[in-house]
């Protein structure tokens, strides 16, 4: 028998009070764990997901954050589009290893998962550094092929061979008639790709309402490149003649032509372009910086470093919210600390005799002082450890719900280094809250308490 078992026995004797007090600590700690795990997940998601791309090029309109959120995180709509010709120019620039066009804005009819119109190159780039996409099936090969994320497959019950339709999101939401066939299923990545549906960009362009009237496109391209409309018309003369012919067709004739030919470059546009440069990290950083500077001089488009944008968001907004949550949970733990104090301090009047018996048996003042401190520490320690387990359990239960609602993939076992601080902090708190009751035990009048 030692001091530890005596303290444990005393706590066990007052099991209801001890359990409730320990529970209050456990709840505070579990909330803190939940916040820390969410913090880790959000930070990882925000920091890593965009890090595979050196630059995201988007329209001049809108903020860089909006472009990154719509292109990489698929939580916002695209503001505007860029001409396909611009994409071709960028792809042809030296030092560009990959230029991947991305069109966003539509959703699946079932499950409302975001659609990404892109090229097969999208799956050649690491989704986070060192992590390559693993695709079951053939992937994007034909015009009407689609690759779906793991979460889409799970939630919609789709697999290779499944077919689906898309909803055109715009002023008048409607379902496109065209069917896409799933030709690939991605292995889980823990990124927004898991809840995305990728369709071949050729198919995306051939959908109804995905191309605007050629006259509008001529004007837009002329403005974008600073050319005259006549120059643009000359450039696309053959395509425009073909388009003029279609204008005079009856709906039946149009339906006959539909799906049968590639769309003119004039009519194509992209929401954004993901760029991966050639070279090592230093060269890539230099190129990214140069592109950002070059683009900021003109009014054509903007080049955004996705990692920097997300870092700013994390620091300025998300970080502050997380900090507020951490403060709040810290406060909860402090309140539970006061609970421990009240519980032990109140029990002291009942325990004076117990303390006196121990003193009569030869326990020193310092021993009973340590005993009460140890009880306080045990309560905090047991509460803290239970809280850590409970917190991870809470996250384990909540993970699928959060995943379903927000697409955030949460690892319940994700460990935050701050967790290491929780237990020592609790022990310090226990020492503080246990001090006064321990002092009472220390100064107990043995003869008087034995008579009472």
């Amino acid at each position: 028998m030692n001091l530890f078992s005596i303290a444990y026995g005393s706590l066990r004797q007052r099991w209801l009070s001890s359990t409730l007090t320990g529970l209050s600590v456990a709840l505070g700690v579990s909330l803190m764990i939940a916040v820390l795990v969410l913090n880790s997940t959000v930070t990882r998601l925000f920091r890593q997901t965009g890090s595979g791309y050196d630059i995201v090029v988007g329209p001049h309109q809108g903020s860089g954050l909006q472009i990154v959120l719509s292109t990489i995180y698929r939580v916002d709509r695209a503001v505007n589009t860029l001409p396909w010709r611009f994409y071709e120019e960028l792809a042809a620039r030296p030092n560009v290893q990959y230029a991947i066009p991305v069109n966003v804005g539509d959703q699946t009819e079932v499950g409302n998962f975001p659609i990404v119109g892109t090229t097969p190159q999208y799956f050649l780039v690491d989704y986070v550094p060192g992590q390559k996409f693993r695709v079951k099936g053939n992937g994007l090969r034909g015009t009407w092929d689609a690759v779906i994320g793991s979460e889409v497959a799970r939630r919609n019950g789709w697999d290779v061979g499944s077919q689906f339709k898309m909803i055109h999101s715009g002023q008048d939401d409607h379902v496109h008639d065209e069917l896409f066939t799933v030709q690939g299923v991605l292995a889980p990545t823990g990124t927004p790709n898991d809840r995305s549906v990728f369709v071949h960009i050729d198919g995306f362009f051939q959908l109804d309402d995905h191309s605007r009237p050629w006259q509008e496109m001529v004007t837009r391209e002329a403005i974008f490149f600073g050319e005259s409309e006549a120059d643009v018309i000359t450039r696309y003369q053959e395509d425009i003649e073909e388009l003029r012919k279609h204008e005079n067709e009856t709906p039946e004739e149009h339906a006959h032509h539909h799906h049968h030919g590639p769309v003119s470059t004039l009519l194509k546009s992209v929401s954004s372009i993901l760029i991966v440069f050639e070279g090592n990290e230093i060269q890539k950083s230099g190129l990214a910086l140069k592109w950002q500077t070059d683009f900021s001089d003109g009014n054509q488009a903007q080049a955004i470093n996705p990692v920097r944008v997300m870092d700013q968001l994390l620091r300025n907004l998300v970080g502050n919210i997380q900090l507020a949550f951490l403060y709040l949970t810290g406060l909860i733990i402090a309140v539970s600390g006061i609970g421990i104090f009240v519980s032990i301090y109140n029990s002291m009047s009942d325990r004076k005799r117990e303390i006196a018996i121990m003193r009569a048996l030869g326990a020193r003042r310092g021993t009973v002082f340590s005993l009460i401190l140890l009880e306080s520490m045990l309560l905090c320690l047991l509460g803290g450890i239970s809280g850590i387990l409970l917190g991870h359990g809470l996250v384990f239960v909540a993970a699928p719900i959060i995943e379903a609602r927000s697409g955030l993939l949460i690892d319940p076992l994700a460990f935050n280094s701050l967790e290491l601080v929780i237990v020592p902090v609790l022990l310090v708190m226990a020492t503080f809250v246990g001090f006064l009751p321990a002092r009472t035990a220390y100064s107990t009048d043995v003869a008087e308490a034995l008579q009472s």
Partner: protein
Amino acid sequence: MTRGCRQEDDRFFGCRVGAERHRNGFRKDHHSKNEMASERLVRVEVVCKDVRETARRPSLEEIFHRTGSTKLMSLLLKNVKKSYREPGGGVLPVLDIPEFEVPQGEQVALIGESGGGKTTLLNVISGISTPDSGEVKIQGTDISQLVEQARDRFRAERIGIVFQTFHLLPAFSALDNVLLGMTFSGKANRAYAKELLDRVGLGKRLGHRPAQLSVGEQQRVSVARALANKPALMLADEPTASVDLANQDTILKLLRETCNENDVTLVLVTHSPAVSEQFERIEKLSDFNKVGVSA
């Protein structure tokens, strides 16, 4: 107890031998390697520690030397005065004992009126309270002169106490209650605790908590707990007052026999003539407490 003292003597002499060896070692080696110095330092510390231990636990020879007697007194009170401060500011004298002594191994029944200072006397003897003046010597050590920490340790090691209301800790089993007494003296011995409980007839109720034991059984646990540290002096404050007649005899017999077997001095406070009659030496507190006489 005599055997215990002899062991202490051995340790005391062992310590001196160690010191002697150390001195020789120093003479022999003081020209040799420097690292021997740290080892010597450790030895000196060990020697000093043993000397301190010995100071706390006087040897038989020392006790005879201090008391000037060849008869070992287990308990000796001289000019002990104790009073309490009343709420009104006055002083209430409780004890004024010119002399009271109990030789080693003797069993004394202390009788007196309620409020006559019996419990205060036991508290003073056990070191729970300190007298205002006078000497309280247990085996030659005046515990009233010890600092509180040393008094606590002395009580843990040398004094066993049986309370009227048992004062068992409800959170712990019978075995743990006995072990508790050993824990504070730093000599927890599970096997001996079991043996003691077996001797008081509770060998099969080791895991029972006080609430699961009868009143008589609880008092037997408290007797076992009091014996746990092999004390030199056993103080029993009305140990049979809370038990029925059938248990009274059992408890008393148990206390007297175990004290006899272990050469433990017993001072038992009672107001029951039926209990005191069983003792060869009966002391009426008012006979040697001048406060009692004046009262």
